[in-house]
Each structure stands twice: as C-alpha cells, then as structure tokens.
C-alpha cells in the first residue's frame, strides 16, 4: 500500500512540476501577477510530494518489503539499518529519486531565500527548475519506477553491493548530487536572465551564493569519493580517472571557472555572456555525467544500469536541455551588451586566463573520457585512455594554473602596473626558487623531477597570498588585528574565503606531489610472527582469525607497527565474504597521520596460516583531502559574506523594479 502511495506521490509531483514550469513563466511573460505568485507554493508542493515518495521508498527498505523489485535487488534482512537507508540510493531508480528530491529541495530553497528578488525573476527561475524536474520525474515514471512490484515475492533480498556498504559511500552520493543539482539553480538563474533579457551585476550577485553553495557540495562530494576509493578499494589510489569520476570532475572544473567569472560579472559587469555560457555548461555537464553513468555507455564499477530505453531518454532530454538553452543563448545573448573595459594586466585578464585553463581542463577530461568511444565509432582502432594519458596532459597545464594563481589575486581590477606586481612577487619568486633547489636534493626528491616543481609552486602560492594579506591589512589605520576582526565580521569575509581556498590548492599540490613520488608499496608473504621493514616502520604480523560481521564473515589480520622500539599502531585489515554473495572485499587497515598513512591490505591466504599482503607507506596523502576541505571551507565562508545577507535580509523589495519591461 505504502509503495503505491509513493508512486502516486511521484505522479502528483510530476503534475505539480508541469504547473510549476508553465504558470509562473507564462505569468512573467504576460505580466499576470497571480500566475507568477504561484511559483513559490508550487515549489513547496513539489518538494512535499517528492519527499513523500522518498519516505515511502525508505520505508519499504527499512521494513524489508521485498515485493518491491528495487528493494529486493538492493537490500537484505541482514543489512544494518543505516545501510538499509543508504541503499535507497544504492541503485539506479533510487538515486534518481534522490536527485529529484534534491532538485525539489533546491527549488523550495530558492522560493524561501528569494524574498528580495523581483517576482518575475523568481517566477522564471522556479519555472526553469520545474522544467528540469519534469524531465527527471518523467524519466523515473516511464523507465525507472522505484516502486514496481514483482511476484512471487522473494523471501530474501539480493543484498546491497558490498562496495556500497560503507559510511563513505552512504554520504558520497548525496553530497555529489547536491552539487550536481545545485548547478541547476545557477542554470535556472542564467536562463531566467536570458528570458528577461537582462544580464547585469544584480543577476550575478543573486546567482553567486547559489553557485558557491553547489560548488562547495560538489567539492566535498568529490573529495569524499576520492577518500572512499582510497580506503575501500584496497589498493590505496585516490584518483583513477574512471569515467564516473571524470563525470563529476567536469562540472566541478566548469563550476570553478563559473564562480570566478561570476566575480568579474558582479564587480565589473564584464564577461556577462561568457558567464551565462559557463552556467549553462556546468549544468549540462552534470546532466551529461548522469547520461554517461546511467546509460551504461561507459561501463565501470559505478554503472548500475544498462538499458537502452533509459539511455535514449536521457540522450533526448540532454539534447533538449543543451540545445534549448544554447538556442536561447544564441538568440538573446548578443542583445546583452558586454561592459567593463580593462587593461592587459589586470585582475580581469588573470581571471580570463583562469577561465581558459579551467575550460581547457574540462575539454581534456571530456575528450579523454569519450576518446575510446569516438575511436571505436569511427573505426580508428581500440585504444585505452587511462591515467597515464590524463596525468601527462594535466601535468602539462597545471603548473601554469598554479603560477597564475599566485599572480591573479594580487592584480588590481581594471588596470595594473606590471612593475608593481613584479616588485610584490619578488620575494615569492626567490623563496620558490630556493625551495626548488632544496627540493632538488636527492634526499628530498628521491630523483623525481616533479618534487621540486610541486613544492616550489606550493611555496609560490603561499607566499603570494601572505603578501596579499599584508597588502590588505597594513594600510588600515586601526591596526591590523582590529582591521582583521572588522573584515571578518563584515563584508571582507569573501576576501579571506578566497585566501583559504587558494591555500587549499597549495596544500593539495603538496599532497599530490609527495604521495605520487614518495609512496612505497610492498608485496610480501608473511607467516604469523614474521615482521617486515618498510620506510622505517616495522610491521609485525601476529596472525589472522575469522570474525563474524552482521552480514559477512571476515578473515581479520592482526598487525603491530613499530617505529624503532615504539609501537605506533595496531592494525586489523580484513578480507570479507558477504553472505549475499559476490566478490570478496578487502577492508584495508589504515593508521592515518598528518604526514603519512600506514596502510595494510590483506590479500590471499596462501596456506599454513601464511598470508599474501600489501603494505603501503603513503606520505602526505591526507593533504589531498585537507586541501579539498580548505577549498570547500573557503567557498562556505564566501557565502556567509555580509553583502549576500544584506540582500537576503531585505524583504520588501519593490518587485519588478529590475525588469519591469519584461
């Protein structure tokens, strides 16, 4: 009964979405206020019904209702409750429902936090979100209904993919989807602005916090995915250039370009049509990611579905969204005047090059992901494009981005004096060269040419941003501590947010450089009582025993790790066989530290109590995720800047002022 209610709720949500896409938009075009005013209630209504559907599916999982096909495929009575709940989005249908829930959530958030916006703008934004929702709800109802029943009812479910029975993967998709779907708001603002024919600084200021929030979620989502892959897949990598990872990286790259170009549009009213194009691209790439993952065009660990009907639907949807918005862009954008003059050496120029590089990265990823398909389609032979190609191509460009990142924030808007910049960056340059020389010593670099380069670039970034801080604070009369506090309390927050996010890049660079060049891995065979030396640590193997988990049986190894005489860690790596069947899973044991991780993964039992094992020493690997966390933190702080709150606090804005003529 409850699953049918869920199904019904989805159908009602679809009807509401159709109304949401239609009435407010038509109202905004004809100036009919009551229709525009329907936008908010419809957005709330849609959220309510999608939430009911989601709750119905969650309920079916929690009570193990295996008469629901989707539940029987992705759950099991033995599954711990938390994973029963996260199993709701453990497969294709449920993850779409989660997507729709978030879309409705973002719509309701726009409805709530847009009191100061002119009504026609709100109406158009919410209508565009309604259009997107129609696509997803139709997709679900036509090809991927999560509430489908089947008969006979199996006594037991098939179990959730053991890979997904993990905390990291329980929270990774929601974060990622919040990011993906969040870009739909930036997209909706862009489309609304195109429809209204008014792209201005106000539009940029409205869409900026929304874009930042989406970007923060996406950053966290990607970092969680990387962290999860690191500890769960059992071979200690943190990025694989898997098509599914690439699918999430592309919107992130374009989104990063977007938040920078929005800054220019807000401050200087320049780059307007370019910013709109980026907003359209960011969301289109989110959809493309969904298409690549869901259609099964690229099969990989993550692809749950291979169904041509689904692929076709997404392809058509994708063409409609991208084609429609680009046509609108082509039609409307030329009318939007490009403003804001700036010189060759200026903040604007730096941000333009930043955008060029981020778009280039996106093209790289897109091209590398699709190349095998293209080559196959045109009969050019089968090729494999994996991490060797991606690493080489990224490393060819990344240093330029890092160099620019040291210069851009110091440059002034409009026009700057190259000699002023040179003087400012002198110290950073000298220190970076010094670090490069130190990094080049064999004891530091271990012979790897990238070590001095990476460390020098990180130094360059840090010193340049310290200069930036000094620049800002030294001229304040009140003295720097007070100036700092005043900044943090008020409008200056976004400045510190930027510094924090950029320092995150430096931290990330150090992490990647060190772990890529200095990690040590060793395959060994050990008997109980054996010990093995690796990177100054002694691993003592005490043996393995059987342990029972809630829905698996595991072999659990027991290790003591010593540094000299001191015991630094006690590790219990596992190899699990899930009762639901499938491949055995390696549960690596990790002793995490700021400067190094020690990582043990259990291979095969080779008889007589002996085990084949893999030991890893991973220096600075945490810095990769710490860097990502700093970037996300920067984004979050930027959103809290007072100028957005001011805009939000004002409730009684005269509606329609900005685009009365629409």
């Amino acid at each position, binding site marked *: 009964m409850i699953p049918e209610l869920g199904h019904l709720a989805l159908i009602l949500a679809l009807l509401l979405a159709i109304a949401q896409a239609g009435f407010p938009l038509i109202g905004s075009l004809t100036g009919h206020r009551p229709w525009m005013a329907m936008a908010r209630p419809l957005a709330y209504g849609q959220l309510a019904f999608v939430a009911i559907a989601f709750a119905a599916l969650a309920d079916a999982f929690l009570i193990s209702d295996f008469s629901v096909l989707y539940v029987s495929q992705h759950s099991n009575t033995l599954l711990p409750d938390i994973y029963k709940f996260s199993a709701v989005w453990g497969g294709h249908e449920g993850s779409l429902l989660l997507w729709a829930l978030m879309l409705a959530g973002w719509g309701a958030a726009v409805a709530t936090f847009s009191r100061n916006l002119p009504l026609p703008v709100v109406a158009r934004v919410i209508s565009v979100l309604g259009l997107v929702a129609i696509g997803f709800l139709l997709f679900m109802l036509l090809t991927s209904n999560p509430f489908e029943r089947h008969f006979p009812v199996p006594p037991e479910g098939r179990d959730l993919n053991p890979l997904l029975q993990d905390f990291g993967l329980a929270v990774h998709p929601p974060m990622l989807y919040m990011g993906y779907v969040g870009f739909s708001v930036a997209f909706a603002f862009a489309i609304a602005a195109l429809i209204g024919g008014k792209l201005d600084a106000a539009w940029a200021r409205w869409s900026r916090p929304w874009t930042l929030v989406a970007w923060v979620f996406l950053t966290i989502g990607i970092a969680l995915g990387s962290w999860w892959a690191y500890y769960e897949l059992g071979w200690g990598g943190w990025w694989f250039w898997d098509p599914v990872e690439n699918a999430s990286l592309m919107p992130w790259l374009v989104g990063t370009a977007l938040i920078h170009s929005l800054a220019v549009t807000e401050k200087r009213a320049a780059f307007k049509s370019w910013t709109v194009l980026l907003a359209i691209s960011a969301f289109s790439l989110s959809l493309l990611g969904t298409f690549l993952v869901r259609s099964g065009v690229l099969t990989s660990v993550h692809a749950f579905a291979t169904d041509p009907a689904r692929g076709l639907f997404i392809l058509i949807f994708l063409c409609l969204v991208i084609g429609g918005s680009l046509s609108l862009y082509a039609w409307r954008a030329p009318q939007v005047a490009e403003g804001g*003059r700036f010189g060759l050496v200026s903040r604007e120029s730096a941000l333009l090059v930043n955008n060029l590089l981020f778009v280039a990265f996106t093209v790289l990823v897109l091209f590398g992901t699709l190349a095998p398909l293209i080559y196959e389609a045109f009969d050019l032979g089968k090729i494999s494009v994996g991490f060797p190609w991606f690493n080489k191509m990224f490393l060819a460009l990344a240093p330029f981005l890092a160099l620019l990142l040291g210069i851009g924030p110091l440059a002034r808007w409009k026009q700057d004096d190259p000699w002023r910049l040179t003087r400012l960056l002198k110290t950073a340059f000298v220190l970076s060269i010094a670090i490069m020389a130190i990094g080049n010593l064999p004891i530091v670099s271990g012979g790897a040419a990238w070590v001095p380069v990476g460390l020098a670039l990180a130094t360059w970034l840090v010193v340049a941003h310290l200069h930036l801080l000094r620049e800002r604070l030294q001229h304040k009369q009140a003295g720097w501590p007070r100036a700092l506090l005043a900044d943090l309390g008020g*409008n200056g927050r976004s400045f510190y947010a930027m510094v924090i996010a950029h320092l995150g890049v430096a931290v990330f660079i150090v992490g990647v450089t060190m772990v890529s060049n200095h990690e040590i891995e060793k395959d060994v*065979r050990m008997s109980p009582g054996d010990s093995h030396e690796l990177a100054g640590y002694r691993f003592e193997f005490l043996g393995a025993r059987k342990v029972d988990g809630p829905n698996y049986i595991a072999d659990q190894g027991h290790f003591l790790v010593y540094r000299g005489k001191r015991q630094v860690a006690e590790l219990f790596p596992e190899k699990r066989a899930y009762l639901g069947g499938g491949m055995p899973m390696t549960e690596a044991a990790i002793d995490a530290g700021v400067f190094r991780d020690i990582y043990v993964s259990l291979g095969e039992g080779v008889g007589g109590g002996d085990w084949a094992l893999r030991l890893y020493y991973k220096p600075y690997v945490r810095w990769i995720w710490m860097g990502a966390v700093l970037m996300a933190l920067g984004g979050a702080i930027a959103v809290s800047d007072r100028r957005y709150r001011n805009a939000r606090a004002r409730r009684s804005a005269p509606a329609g002022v900005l685009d009365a003529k629409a």
Partner: protein
Amino acid sequence: MSPRIKSLALSALLLLGSGSVSAYTLEEFKFDSPAQEAEFRDLIGKLRCLVCQNESLAGSQAGLAQDLRNEVYAMMRAGQPKDEILDFLVERYGDFVLYEPPLKPSTYLLWFGPFVFIGVGAFVVVRTLLGKKQAQDEPLSEAERERLQALMDPQRDAHSSDS
C-alpha cells in the same frame, strides 16, 4: 581465430562487469634483484588489463590479468628486453593492451587535439584582451547604478567590498 583468442573472448564475456576489488599480490613472483622487480612493476603498470574497465595489469584481480602477468613474468625471466615484450604484446592484442596510447598518426588527435583547442582558445582570449583596449567603456548608466544600489544595499554599506 586461434583457440587462444577464442578463449580470450570467452573470458572477456564472463568477466565483464565483475568488478575486481581485492588486492592480489606480487608475492608469487620471485626476482633476482630489486631492480628486476621494479622493472616488472613498471612493465605491468604500462599494460592494460584487457577485460577490465580502466585498470592496469598491475592493479587488476581478473583471472585473465593474472595469466598475462604470468606470461610477462616468464618472458622477462627468459631474458627478453622490455621493448621486445611490449612489441610482442601489441602485435598480439593491438594498441589496446598499452595503457598509454602510443604516439602515431591515428592518435595525433588524442595527444594534440586538446592543445589545439587551448591554442585557439588562447588566441580568442588574447584577441579579446587586445580588442578591449580600443573598445568603448560601457559602464552602467547612472540610473542603472542607482537602481542596483537601491535594490542591493539598502543601508549603503560604507565598506568597499573586495574579493
């Protein structure tokens, strides 16, 4: 179709879709020296697991990957130089077996395409920048600015915002 290729195709069918998630180890291979082990690691890192999605021979658990590893190991022990081993495998399985696509006319697009794109993009950017110098400054009109201020900052924030 040789029997070997047939069995390869069959294993490919069977193995497709089965993710490989546990760590195999190199323990079973014995080496004369650490240098030889490093060379072996390097070699299997350059080769691709033919039936997996996006995995090198070094990372893969698949049975076929194990067979191929054994073969590479045997060739190496027989004293064949690295290049010869790679050539032999490319001849048998095609370029697909190399994890890094080789540089040759059919892959020029892959290796240089992105840079051509960047070159064109850079050209457009530079042209825009130079064009900007002559372009008319088109600031917000006074009326627009007023309206924007009234809408955004009712309290007329005194601070200069910067980010």
